[in-house]
């Protein structure tokens, strides 16, 4: 298994945000976690990235337990996150932001290759290369954040609420990009979304999270026709 998370418990002080979640990803899969506000989606992703420590449980990446490994080392192992609310570096230029994503990777040629590819995917970034990231619009920052994660050519991409703040057309575009990355480049993606329809639509499997526990899991398209899911998350 590519990524396996077992018995994950995470607490903030006395509040338990995630109480015993299990899930897995096979290599090359695109898997979604959907759930309402405060269900614990961001908490789970941050825990897989290593930004916050779990109280209990194990995270296994490519057969190796990484539970105690700090985030910057996980990044070097090929895990990258597109964090909630983009978190670009405001006083670095767009280009410099992308450079930070390439940290420790010395292959200059690879960098320019991936850079021109990303500029093709997100043309607005090319036009704004020299501009400070703080001067970008919210949606543009979101694109920059995705590009920054992708430039390192990760093996596992964690995507947190990428549709937030993007206009509908861009949402479709970004999901299309994620789908393409997954299908054509074999990138394994764990997607966390409020926009359940869009994320289930491109996913192979999905987990439904409710206040820190996983209540449903299975084939994404089957879940889409599940009456409960339909009512609560798809709004029809």
């Amino acid at each position, binding site marked *: 298994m590519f990524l396996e998370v077992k018995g994950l418990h995470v607490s903030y002080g006395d509040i338990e945000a995630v109480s015993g979640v299990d899930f897995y990803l096979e290599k090359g899969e695109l898997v979604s976690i959907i759930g309402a506000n405060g269900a614990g989606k961001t908490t789970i992703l941050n825990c897989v990235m*290593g930004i916050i420590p779990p109280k209990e449980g194990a995270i296994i990446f490519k057969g190796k337990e990484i539970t105690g490994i700090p985030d910057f080392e996980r990044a070097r192992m090929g895990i990258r996150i597109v*964090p909630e609310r983009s*978190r670009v*570096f405001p006083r670095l230029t767009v280009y410099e932001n992308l450079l930070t994503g390439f*940290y420790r990777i010395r292959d200059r040629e690879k960098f320019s290759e991936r850079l021109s590819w990303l500029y093709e995917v997100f043309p607005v970034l090319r036009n704004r290369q020299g501009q400070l990231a703080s001067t970008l619009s919210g949606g543009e920052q979101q694109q920059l954040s995705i590009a920054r994660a992708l430039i390192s050519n990760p093996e596992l991409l964690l995507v947190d609420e990428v549709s937030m703040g993007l206009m509908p057309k861009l949402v479709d575009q970004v999901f299309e990009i994620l789908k393409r990355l997954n299908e054509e480049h074999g990138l394994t993606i764990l997607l966390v979304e409020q926009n359940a329809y869009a994320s289930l639509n491109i996913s192979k499997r999905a987990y439904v999270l409710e206040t820190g526990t996983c209540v449903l899991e299975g084939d994404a398209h089957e879940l889409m026709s599940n009456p409960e899911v339909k009512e609560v998350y798809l709004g029809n």
Partner: protein
Amino acid sequence: MLSSYAITIGTIIVIQAIAVCGLNVIVGFAGQISLGHAAFFGIGAYTSAILTVKAGLSFWTALPIVIAIGGLIGLMLGLPSIRVREDFLAITTIGINFIVEALFRYIPFFGGALGIGGIPRIMLFDIRMKGIPFFFLCLFFLCIVILICWWFTRSWASLAFYAIREEETAASAMGISPVRFKLLAFVMGTSMAALSGSLYAHYMQFINAGDFSFPVSVGFLSMLVLGGIGTIWGPVIGTVILGVLPELFRPLVDYRILFYTLLLLVMIRFQPGGLLGEKSLVKNILSRTFKRC
């Protein structure tokens, strides 16, 4: 003809500027507060004094050891400090300053209250360095330190530092280890302070624990804040201004520490970027004046 008085002032300014450049790496580049920089200035001075006076090494053989020890102690003290919160870091570094000063003062090996005297002058090409030649030697070292800082701001490291200062979590998740970079800054900054201390020892030829007390650290920080935190030339400008001012207004000498503290507070309140930093009033006025010309 330069008077020897002017040369003395100039030499001290250049030596201090080296230490302030080091402080700039820690405070400006890595964004870590340090209120105990004089401790490392003192460690450099005492190490070089002991190695030359007691062990009979030349300044030049001692220098790499001095720099290494300065950096190593910086690393050791940096390790626990970096993990504490910012306000604690301020207190911790003040504590380090007091402890180091006390060690110099009360341990007989460091000369106790008397300090260490008879520190030899630096020999270069069979010339005993003092006066103008020594001034230029110090200037040479300052240039190297500035070059290192300049190279630093152009390199990968500065990008990493920027990223860490702005969004530490995001930077860390990008593979940039905050601890590693902060320690790097501590080591660089304290090594520069040690170099500066060594030059100071061989210039004064006599050192005493009081030369490295907490007010000296406050002085360094004032110079940095005045000139511009995180800029290349700020440390130099700040040191020159604060080095020259008390000579022009003698009363300032007696109230130096009060003046430094006030300046620090005023700058942080009204011009946190310093004279050369962002949103600098002086820079704005200058550029406007030049545009008009």
